[in-house]
């Protein structure tokens, strides 16, 4: 049990159930996520995809089922039996969460550099010069001009804020990143750039990602695998290209056919 088992997934979700009053948001959701794998959760609003994301990211408690994460000892650990301290530490080191609205994931009145480095400072980095170098490195990687390092995100455009949020999450080299509609709040012309950045970074850093989106094109571009949700149920899942090119479930067929082809 204590040996590192190569055949264990990074995240194992089993039979999750979540209700709000008498409305069931998630019916028995189960899936595995492997290291370096990008999984898209696709559906319309009300499908339960955001609820699912919040539950597996330990932001909301499920009513039933479990979520297990592969810890450093190579063991699957139930995230809901961890202490609050452990969960919070995980959220700031091995995990990332990219919000749809960048303002929810940034300190808007603190400089871009400090936004990027905060996690490191929280982990005990006390060398200002090194922190600044790290900030420069990451701003460069998300294509933000270093001259903006001491400006606050209030002065940034939507696309820049989102790229800053991404940098803030990636600075601790997380293994797993959750993304909730990361480009939906942006202008169409700006989305492409952010998506391209995400594609590069997830590949280079071998990140495992669960990305929630209503946009099939996003799934096509970023995801290795995808799941389709309808009314709280996962109705279809599989390799992205297979699901999109040869949808089996009627709802998936409907989604795919309603996307305008250029």
């Amino acid at each position, binding site marked *: 049990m204590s040996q590192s088992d190569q055949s264990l997934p990074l995240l194992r979700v089993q039979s999750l159930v979540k209700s*709000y*009053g*008498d*409305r069931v948001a998630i019916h028995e959701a189960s899936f595995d996520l492997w290291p370096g794998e990008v999984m898209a959760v696709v559906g319309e609003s009300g499908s339960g995809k955001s609820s699912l994301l919040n539950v597996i990211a330990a932001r909301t408690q499920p009513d039933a089922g479990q979520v297990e994460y592969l810890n450093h000892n190579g063991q699957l650990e139930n995230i809901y039996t961890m202490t609050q301290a452990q969960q919070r530490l995980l959220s700031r080191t091995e995990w990332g969460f990219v919000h749809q609205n960048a303002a929810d994931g940034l300190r808007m009145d603190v400089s871009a550099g400090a936004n990027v480095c905060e996690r490191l400072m929280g982990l005990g980095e006390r060398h200002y010069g090194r922190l600044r170098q790290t900030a420069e490195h990451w701003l460069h990687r998300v294509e933000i001009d270093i001259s903006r390092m001491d400006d606050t995100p209030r002065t940034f455009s939507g696309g820049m804020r989102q790229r800053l949020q991404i940098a803030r999450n990636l600075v601790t080299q997380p293994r797993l990143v959750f993304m909730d509609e990361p480009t939906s709040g942006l202008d169409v012309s700006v989305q492409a750039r952010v998506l391209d950045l995400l594609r590069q970074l997830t590949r280079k850093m071998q990140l495992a990602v669960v990305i929630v989106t209503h946009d099939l094109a996003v799934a096509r571009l970023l995801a290795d695998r995808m799941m389709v949700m309808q009314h709280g149920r996962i109705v279809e899942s599989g390799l992205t290209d297979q699901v999109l090119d040869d949808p089996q479930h009627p709802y998936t067929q409907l989604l795919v056919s309603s996307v305008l082809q250029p």
Partner: protein
Amino acid sequence: MYVAVKGGETAILNTYKMLAEQRRGNTDYLELSVEQICQQLKLSVDRVMTEGSVYDPELAALAIKQASGDLIEAIFLLRAYRSTLPRIGNTCALDTARMQLDRRISATFKDLPGGQVLGPTYDYTQRLLDFTLLANSQSERTESSPKTSAPSMPPEQVPRVVDLLNQEGLIETFTCPAHDPDPIDLTREPLRFPADRATRLQNLARGDEGFLLAMAYSTQRGYSHTHPFVGEVRLGQVAIEIEPEELGFAISIGDIDITECEMVNQFAGSKTEPPQFTRGYGLAFGHSERKAMAMSLVDRALRADELGEAIESPAQMQEFVLSHSDSLEASGFVQHLKLPHYVDFQSELELVRKMRENNPAEHAHSQGPT
């Protein structure tokens, strides 16, 4: 030759003398008696008792006299005095249904059992300065308190509007659970967050009327989603009862005047609750309608969390409202800025000078230290 400033003690004693002179005013005029204040500045006395948390009109009047009419200062005096009093026990919960009514109105019904008893109120006066009062004589304008059409002696037990609404199950009720714990006493324990409703109500009851009024007002101007109605405002005497162990039953030890407000709000219902009315509650000593009403609106706003409403405005935020409602804390901290701060200021002076030295051109950009 510089001589260090000394003689602080003498300076302080001189302030006492000057203060006493200011308080007395011109000795050509009669000295105000505590009893006169008690009788003729009743509404000031009521406010000081409420926020001072002591029901003793004579002490409140004394505090007002000593404070030259500054009500917040008077409240301070009364609270400081209260700190020294021994605690004998707690009374039974007041039964406001058994109130000897001076006034009782409801905006939710045109008429109701017990009637609309207008009582003594400014509500129907025209706010015209009455110069006959200058001449120190009885006012001629007696129509300022119109006669009511209700029976002259309201019955002892007048049902509360909320109880009437409750007969149809239209309004939320709170059954007291078994082993319901005693409320904590904010005059003995520090406030912690999140605070339960009993604690919040105690904080609001002692809270500054002006602050609560502003917070309440904000809830009516779109900074909240409740649509309030005055279910009932009642004012009159209730009995204070205690239940000594040796007796095993409650005995009355006196009466106090109180004002109570039940505010009724809409609630669309949720998945588990049918639509019904929700409540806000206000209570104050003496005749203090504005306070009781403001308190009830803020009480309701602070229940946003419990009722699943989005918290979007300051009046709904516990930490904001409850941390800033106490006039003693607010006045003390605001006014403490008058105390010497020159050592800290010294440090700031140096910092600003240093920054200007280093970046003379940039001082236009920098925002300076906070």
